[in-house]
């Protein structure tokens, strides 16, 4: 097995964009090729595209060749699209990792993208409800916000977590996204503003929720030897983990404990030969404020039920135990489903290369990305290490 490194990154502007799915792909592709200046497109032998809901949100199938056309790439080794709802992007990265590690591919481009804003928001919501079992659970008007509202309700009920603690996650992540020109919400928010934002699904308010966002992100992967020739700072993928249960909400053993996340974290760290305490920063899937609180617990940073206290003590901020979501997270950047898992990796790589503004610079050597999907039944983890 060969070592696999990220040698280039590219982001387009995220938000409610006056741009189509294809144009989002072009923007992130341009940013990537600008970053790896001098790389001929012909050398990219593989393209993996993470995109969750193109059929429903952009009326478009066969997305990987569509993206190849936009980027001017003619893959000679591997071409595929991955769909795993909010983990679609990380799944594409994982497939590219496997292709390069085995020698099937030498240079692979990974793109995550999603066009989510349509002229009809209720049609978008209809499509989002298909992520759950549509005919059994989506049919009840169940989408992500009401599901995670019940998670928050149970966490408050079982452990005494407060809305103020949840709001602190939003305040922190928006403070970071305020320094991120690619973010959907590049603006700080106050505690008061989060707590008084309109109710979406109680106890979740608008600013407890990530946005409906258009966006794309890309990374370029190659094998260890080639990486050192392409960049001074290759960032190696050292560990991967994933664990899941089936998708029926009614059959989940618990709303507030995510054992599949614990498993994915354990496996990824073991593969990397590292512990959570070695990490210098982490990108966690804060689709809702309560998610990040539970993730502190499942990462082993806080005891079960004490995630609220962890944010209260500032432990997930710069200067705390582990800086989390310096990119601004899903809360600050928005959540274009297929793009998120790739953008998390982009942030860690750009941190290691000191390509981020000083207000959120952490740098370091080790980073962890966590991406979840559905009703938090599926979790994927990537552990990255800066090479020298």
């Amino acid at each position, binding site marked *: 097995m060969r070592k696999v490194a990220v040698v280039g990154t590219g982001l387009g502007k995220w938000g409610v964009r006056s741009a189509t799915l294809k144009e989002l792909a072009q923007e992130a592709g341009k940013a990537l090729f600008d970053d790896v200046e001098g790389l001929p497109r012909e050398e990219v032998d593989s393209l993996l595209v993470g995109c969750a809901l193109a059929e*429903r949100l952009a009326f478009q199938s066969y997305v990987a060749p569509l993206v190849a056309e936009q980027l001017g790439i003619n893959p000679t080794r591997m071409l595929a699209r991955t769909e795993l709802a909010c983990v679609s992007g990380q799944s594409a990265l994982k497939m590219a990792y496997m292709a390069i590690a085995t020698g099937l591919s030498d240079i692979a481009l990974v793109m995550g993208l999603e066009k989510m804003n349509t002229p009809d*928001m*209720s*049609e978008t*919501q*209809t499509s*989002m*409800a298909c992520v759950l*079992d*549509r*005919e*059994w*659970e*989506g*049919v*009840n*008007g*169940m*989408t992500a*916000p*009401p599901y995670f*509202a*019940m*998670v928050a*309700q*149970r966490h408050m*009920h079982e452990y005494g977590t407060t809305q103020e603690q949840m709001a602190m996650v939003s305040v922190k992540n928006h403070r970071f996204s305020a320094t991120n020109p690619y973010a959907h919400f590049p603006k700080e928010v106050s505690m008061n503003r989060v707590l008084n934002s*309109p*109710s*979406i*699904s*109680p106890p*979740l308010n608008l600013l407890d929720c990530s946005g409906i966002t258009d966006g794309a992100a890309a990374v370029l992967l190659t094998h260890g030897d080639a990486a050192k020739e392409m960049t001074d700072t290759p960032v190696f993928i050292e560990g991967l983990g994933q664990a899941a249960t089936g998708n*029926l*909400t*009614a*059959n989940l053993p618990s*709303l507030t404990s995510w054992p599949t996340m614990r498993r994915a974290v354990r496996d990824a760290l073991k593969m990397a030969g590292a512990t959570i305490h070695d990490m210098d920063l982490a990108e966690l899937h804060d689709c809702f404020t309560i998610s990040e609180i539970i993730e502190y617990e499942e990462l082993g940073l806080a005891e079960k039920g004490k995630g609220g206290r962890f944010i209260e003590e500032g432990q997930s901020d710069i200067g705390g135990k582990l800086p989390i979501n310096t990119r601004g997270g899903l809360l600050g950047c928005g959540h274009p489903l297929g793009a998120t898992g790739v953008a998390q990796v982009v942030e860690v790589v750009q941190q290691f290369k000191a390509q981020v503004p000083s207000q959120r610079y952490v740098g370091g050597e080790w980073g962890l990305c966590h991406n979840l999907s559905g009703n938090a039944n599926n979790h994927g983890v990537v552990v990255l290490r800066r090479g020298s």
Partner: protein
Amino acid sequence: MGEEKGVRRVPYLLDFYPLQGEEHTRIHPFFTHLTEGRLTTTRCKACGEVLWQPRVVCPHCNGEEMDWIDLPQEGELHAFTSVTVGAPMGMEDDLPFVVGIVKLRGTGLKVLARIDGASYEDLSIGQAVRLKVQPLEDGRVWFRFQV
């Protein structure tokens, strides 16, 4: 799901409700039982596991022989919330509405459903609820729970 006079036909890919007739699904007895006011599911004849949702193959032992059994019609709220904005198509007029996870009485079984008969503010965890059969405009049925 035939075209009937006065029934607005939603395009298939925007229609949330399962197709229920014998020509569409092998679990059609579930819907027939529901019209009779019964909430039922399948139990694997080979290993005895009660399966939710109803199945045609047992995910535990691969058995294909199923018994239909009645489930309790009463339960209590394990978790709930209110959908106040962002309803999918066809549900906008119902806003706000309550959804919840109901723990069925005397079983370990939970089901996700709409909760009728009370607003979010009036509910608390543990609230008793009972089955409500909801007829759809086109003759199909679905289950909800009510306070």
